[in-house]
């Protein structure tokens, strides 16, 4: 993969960001910064706004208020949760991974010999040698996740967003995927990962943002994942309250 010139600067900055559905905020007044080349985990219970936040960073959701700013010119790779992919579609592993070439070749650019080599190299790098022509509907959950990581590899992006990449994946695969994530960080890329396994986060992710529809804590992982903070995150009510008072602008911290 190509080397990435990186200044020690901010990759993603959220200022007083509120994102939601209808009049309900799924992420409420969040201010936080991810510096370039950092590796961060997004942690929180189900419904705490993790996927919403990562979709907002990916530019797929529009903020209700505040802003989410990404350093200009930053290329971006986003790996959604598996459930959004149509596994019955007639495609081979190679076709799925080749989608990542969109970042360089776009709609009409021809896929050249070196592009095919990069796809083959990515498939090999995630440990799927010999799977090039396998139909995607015949892959196990872990194999599919490896193929999707190969696609991220091919995208060669500076900012990498992974939404629950370790779900339903065995330990060996998690180990391999985490090694890839560290390799990406070593290359100067910014990586943000939604994760549930707190032990894994403590061991592998230097920074953590703990969410419960509003930010509970942000910073060094061991300072964030304290039992106090986790208790506060659990106590916040998940459900939307249709009679909740409107959030007044002057309440904003």
């Amino acid at each position, binding site marked *: 993969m190509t080397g990435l010139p990186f200044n020690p600067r901010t990759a993603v900055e959220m200022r007083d960001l509120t994102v939601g559905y209808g009049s309900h905020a799924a992420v409420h007044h969040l201010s936080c910064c991810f510096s370039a080349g950092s590796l961060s985990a997004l942690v929180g219970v189900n419904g705490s706004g993790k996927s919403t936040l990562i979709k907002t960073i*990916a*530019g*797929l959701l529009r903020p209700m208020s505040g802003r989410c700013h990404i350093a200009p010119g930053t290329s*971006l*790779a*986003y790996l*959604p949760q598996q459930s*959004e*992919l*149509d596994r019955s*579609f*007639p*495609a*081979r592993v190679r*076709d*799925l991974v080749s*989608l990542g070439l*969109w*970042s360089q070749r*776009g*709609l*009409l650019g021809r896929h050249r010999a070196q592009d095919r080599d990069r796809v083959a190299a990515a498939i090999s790098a995630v440990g799927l040698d010999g799977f090039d022509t396998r*139909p995607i509907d015949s892959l196990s959950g872990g194999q599919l996740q490896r193929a999707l990581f190969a*696609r991220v590899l091919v*995208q060669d992006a500076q900012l990498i967003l992974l939404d629950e990449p370790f779900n339903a994946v065995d330990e060996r695969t998690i180990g391999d995927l985490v090694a890839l994530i560290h390799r990406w960080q070593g290359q100067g890329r910014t990586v943000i990962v939604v994760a549930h396994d707190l032990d894994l986060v403590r061991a592998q992710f230097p920074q953590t943002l703990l969410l419960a529809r509003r930010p509970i804590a942000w910073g060094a992982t061991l300072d964030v994942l304290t039992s106090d903070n986790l208790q506060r995150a659990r106590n916040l009510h998940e459900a939307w309250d249709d009679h909740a008072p409107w959030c007044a602008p002057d309440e904003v911290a």
Partner: protein
Amino acid sequence: MHDFLIAPFAEFDFMRRALLGALMLSLTACPVGVFLMLRRMSLTGEAMSHAILPGAAAGFLIYGLKILPMTIGGLIAGAIVAVGAGAVARLTVQKEDASMAAFYLISLAVGVVLVSLRGSSVDLMHVLFGTVLALNDDALWLIMIVLAVTVLVLVILWRALVAECLDPLFLRSVSKLGGITHQAFLGLVVLNLVAGFQALGTLLSVGLMILPAAGARFWTTSVLPMVGLAVVIGAMSSVGGLLLSYHASLPSGPAIILSSGAIYAASVLLGPRGALMPLLTRRTHRTG
């Protein structure tokens, strides 16, 4: 053999025209049908085919059985329903299947009412079931233009169409083309249905789109071969259907659709990914 297969086309001009029209329709509608099926929108295609009826009927009401006004009317009605149903799905809680059903049911009723205002039941039959044996030059030109537009749009949007079917969220994360691709594709569906309705009628034009594509699905696991195979099945159905119609004195449109139905049924049973093959193949397996 010659008498059976070649003579009908050699002797009669209307049979040659019908063959040309049906083959061109196979070439344009079948690839669109493959993507319609892969996007799980086969029934949307069915709904859209009913949706063009009131437009065609309005053209008929004002200008009589003339192809241009009926085509333009059909295109406008199809576009209104596609955009309207899509807008209801995007702006409200209702999903597209329900809003599409609502729109097309209203369209179908309006269309039948419009035709009956002026026409006889023969006219209604023509609009609903087409007359492939009476394709005039205008109709053939229309099909040819639609064929050219369809091939052009498919070649340009191929990569986006595949990405949108396989992983729509991925496409949205790398490109703003997702929405345009969807709209352009719906446009192609309407265009092909309008091209087909003169030959096969509004009720059956969707058949040549869906049945060959659905049959091809049982034979291959890649998109491009699937498109090629769907076109071949469409062409075989066209030839078979026209011969069946000629020799057995059956209405030509339904005969073409029945032929592709027969190929579909054979594919369901005999295709490598069909129902019988797993039972017939040896029950041995490799060690690794």
